């Protein structure tokens, strides 16, 4: 019994030592990681600062004007180039050109089977079946 206790105590000691060591190792590893990440963040901040400076350098009005003069056909804004919303023509009544075309071709009923709600229950089941069968055949 006493021997077992001794062995257990030694094992516990070795185990805790290993645990303590691993904790310590992990801590220093994490600390290193933090320092590294901080350095990376700093490097990213510096890179962002450079990119921001570069962006504002590339989009400086002087350069944009040169590019616009060369590649775009823009003109200065003047009063005669603006109209008020009221000056726009009224919106025309909505015309569904496709529906009109379908109606004209006489396909209106076939394309809208659910248009007549009263018709649905009176439709014989058999005829529907044959119809579907028939269409399936055609395909």
């Amino acid at each position, binding site marked *: 019994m006493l021997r077992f206790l001794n062995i257990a105590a030694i094992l516990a000691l070795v185990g805790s030592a290993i645990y303590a060591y691993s904790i310590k190792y992990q801590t220093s590893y994490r600390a290193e990681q933090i320092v590294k990440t901080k350095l990376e963040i700093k490097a990213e901040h510096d890179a962002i600062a450079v990119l921001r400076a570069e962006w504002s350098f590339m989009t400086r009005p*002087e350069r944009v004007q040169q590019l616009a003069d060369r590649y775009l056909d823009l003109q200065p804004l003047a*009063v005669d180039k603006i109209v008020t919303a009221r000056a726009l023509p009224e919106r025309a009544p909505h015309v569904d050109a496709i529906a009109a075309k379908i109606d004209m071709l006489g396909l209106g009923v076939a394309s809208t089977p659910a248009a007549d709600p009263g018709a649905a229950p009176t439709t014989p089941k058999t005829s529907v079946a044959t119809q579907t069968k028939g269409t399936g055949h055609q395909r």
Partner: protein
Amino acid sequence: MTMDTGQFVDTPPPDGQRATPAKKGAAERLRDFARAAFSTNLSSSTSRMRLVALLFLALYGVIGGRLVFLGFKPDPANLRRAAAEAVAAARPDLLDRNGEILATDVKTMSVFAEPRRLIDKDEATELLTAALPQVDAHELRDRLASKKGFVWVKREVTPHQRDEVFHLGLPGVGLIAENKRVYPNGPIGAHVLGFANIDNVGIAGMEKFIDGQGLADLHGAGFSMTPEELSPITLSLDIKATHALRDELAKGVEHFKALAGASAIMDVNTGEVIAMASLPDYDPNNPPDIHDVNIINRLNVGVYEMGSTFKALTVAMALDSGKVNLNSRFDAHTALTSGRFRIHDYHPQNRALTVPEVFTYSSNVGVARMALGQGVEKHKAFLRKMGQLTRMRTELPESAAPIVPQNWGELNTMTIAFGHGLAVAPLQAMMAVAALMNGGYLITPTFVKRSEEEAKKDAPIVIKPETSEAMRYLMRLNAEKGTAKKVDIAGYFVGGKTGTAEKVIHGHYSKTRLFTTFMAVAPADKPKYLFMTLMDEPQGLPETGGFATAAYNSGSVTGKIIERVGPLLGLPPRFEPPTQPFPILARLGFGFVNTPATGGGGH
């Protein structure tokens, strides 16, 4: 055994054995010492422990002494401090009113050396000058020979040079990251921004102003701020408008072959300077010689006789006194004589003129009589109230005091009434005209973004609202049918006033060398922006009929600026002119002010 020793101790050794016992004695003594040292006899352990304790005490004493010695010795941590003091500090970003970057910091690498740690200074000099060709070898050798702990080899090296120096692997030579100030927009807004030197210390403009706010003190005390800790400073400038203004001004200066030109846009309700340019200017990325008078900020540092734009102040003084109203007439039959001076009109009408006519014909005689009607003291007091006789201070460290006549007599009042004899900074004149426009608030111009409430909180009210409205009417009338027709850009309801001053050359006013100014306000019914352009010695051109007066040069440039900048600043062009632009005047019985004027040809 014991008997033997006893015998040996008790009886002296015989004479014949004397040579051998000396030898034998040494060996024996060694044996005795070993026996005594390693014996486990308890009687000697106390003294032995004392000896051991003494030894350890001595050992710890040595270690402790060494620690104290090391503590007092100057260590490499000193280098870090020296480097931190030497490197360029971080500065806050400067943004325009819409958040565009005007000035920012980027990191660059600089090469430094610690002369005390260099092994072979000649070799180091040779290798470093090979890697950095711009460095002068002799000078570098001298610097490395010094006893200093820290010297710069070269500031702001390229990435390629940085790698080369790194690969030299010289002990005592290192690289350190520094902040470098960059101005992405180049010369746009340069006079407002100023610039910072290689140590990132503000030398001029807003950069110097920021340092004055305590940044430099912090750095000097050793608190280096990282860029994240510094909140950016938002200026009042609009970079797009500033570019457009500078572009039009540059075209104008070139077209009219002027020596110099300057232009500014100010928000009349907040005093913010929205855009500003003074040509010739400089690129803050390549800092110029600060003492070069040619590149001064003509709006703030130069003082000029503003010419007829000053008539607005005289007319406002007369109207505000209550003695004069819009229907009052002033005699302009003949030139006004005072002593040996004669005051002429540029557009002589040779009749009595009403106040609006005095303004639109820009009659020198009319305004001189107006000022005389008020008297010298009142004129002086009014100009002092309008801030024209004292030095105006803004955030910009550069400023200039106005040149005021020593003995201010009646003649001075007559000439100052039309802008000769008193030289002020153009921005100062803008402040006064803005007060005439915005309802009477004298707001000191600012280069930092601020709200209308903030601006008007401490602003003194210098004229009555109805006087302000009358001045806006006069400015508008002048753009409709007076000398300022060049700025009547459709849709913006602009009002304006020209000003042509003759430059003083060798003590005399010159007829050919002119200084022209132009003030315009838009829109005149609800004033928002005040535009000003000035030109130094513009030349008459064939298409202007050889005239070099303000309307032809400064005026046309201002017109182009308004046309181009209006949409950028969110001034919506209006199709219909406002029907009741001047309600207070109409209520006071001057209903005619709300009828748009037309024609009026010839002036």
